[in-house]
């Protein structure tokens, strides 16, 4: 037993010796570590999507964008906001009155029902990624089957997107193509507009944000000022499916490449 302990101590001493440590740091001649070191940086060409260029998003001057945001947050959704706020407050009061008897709660509901009528604009706007995608897909299908009526009040007219507030480019990269196919005008809103839109539509009580907002034809017809500003300053998206230029999008990717070729057996030198 004593002998084994002594040998262990000797081993530990040898490992602590700096000279031996130096020897161990250097990898063996044909080891995997050595092969890893033999690498050089190179630029590899990679073909990118010709339709995901930044220029595909229509350019709008910042002054016009400010006007659009002002119209959306201050004027257009005023009635909708009041309606939503009263609706929300009545719901919260219903929750609080759950402790009372059913007869009492019925009488309270009759008293607390919102006196404000439902505005016509309430049906003609859409928020949320999934609902907007659904309407876009339906509209594209209608256009392809040649049954689309552009004057239909339920047709999507303008699409506002807070691109800079979205977490992933996966969520907005497809919009230029889809809006062109659906004949919808695409408007990219400035940063932090998502919170302003939420307040403008649902009031300050509601938390959360609105990144995607769609206005239907019925909504636009009621607000000619907004229509005038957008029609004059915003163009339709032009993805240019097969135009004069090929739109070759090649990028170079900086990667590591192992130095040395392969043997006949398939083992790297």
């Amino acid at each position, binding site marked *: 037993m004593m002998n084994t302990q002594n040998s262990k101590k000797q081993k530990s001493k040898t490992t602590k*010796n700096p000279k031996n440590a130096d020897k161990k740091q250097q990898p063996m001649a044909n080891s995997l570590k050595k092969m890893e070191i033999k690498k050089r*940086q190179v*630029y590899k060409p990679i*073909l990118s999507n010709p339709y995901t260029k930044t220029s595909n998003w229509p350019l709008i001057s910042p002054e016009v964008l400010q006007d659009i945001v002002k119209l959306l947050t201050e004027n257009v959704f005023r009635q909708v906001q009041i309606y939503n706020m009263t609706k929300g407050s009545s719901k919260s009061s219903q929750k609080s009155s759950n402790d009372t008897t059913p007869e009492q709660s019925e009488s309270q509901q009759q008293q607390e029902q919102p006196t404000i009528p439902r505005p016509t604009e309430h049906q003609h706007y859409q928020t949320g990624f999934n609902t907007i995608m659904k309407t876009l897909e339906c509209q*594209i*299908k209608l256009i392809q089957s040649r049954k689309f009526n552009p004057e239909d009040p339920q047709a999507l007219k303008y699409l506002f997107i807070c691109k800079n507030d979205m*977490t992933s480019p996966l969520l907005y990269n497809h919009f230029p193509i889809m809006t062109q196919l659906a004949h919808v005008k695409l408007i990219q809103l400035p940063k932090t507009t998502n919170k302003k839109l939420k307040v403008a539509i649902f009031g300050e009580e509601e938390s959360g944000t609105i990144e995607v907002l769609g206005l239907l034809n019925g909504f636009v017809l009621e607000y000619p000022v907004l229509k005038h500003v957008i029609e004059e300053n915003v163009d339709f998206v032009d993805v240019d499916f097969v135009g004069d230029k090929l*739109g070759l*999008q090649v990028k170079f990717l900086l990667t590591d490449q192992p130095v040395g070729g392969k043997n006949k057996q398939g083992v790297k030198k």
Partner: protein
Amino acid sequence: MSKTVTKNDPENLKSAKNTKQQKAPKNSKTQKAPKVPNNIPKKDHYQRLTYLYKIGSIMSSNLVDAGSISQSTKQGTNTFDILSRAYIKNLDLVSKKVVLKLHPNIKRTICKNCSRLVVTSPNSTMRIMNESKKKSPKNDVLEIVCECGTKKRFPFGKDPNYIPFAERDSVVVDAKF
């Protein structure tokens, strides 16, 4: 009590080596910053692939005037859809044969099963799903369902700051023409 520093002290030697390693790694001498190439190697093939992708997307989006071509075959399938799938399949085969790399933003739009373009094809859907009970944003998944039924799922809520390697600004350089 102040410590006296000696040259032969093994601890000092170790620390000195560590600082050297931190300052100048071994590979730094061998790895020189490469120059960005002026030409695109295999440019013709890249052009061919771009053209195939564009023609595939124009066919799937059904933008062609259907005056001369019959839109539906006897079996009820769309001619443009078949053509689009053929072009995209061709693109995939050519890229493999010539060993050309495709960016993830191209590969994400192609169905691996049926070679359809999932963004422009009319029957594919794109939804944000959250199957957790608490509906926490961490579990947000972008689900793209192709016409053939295959799904592509991107869990973008898991790490919102994650950027794929091919999209990092420090790594990607645009080609100069």
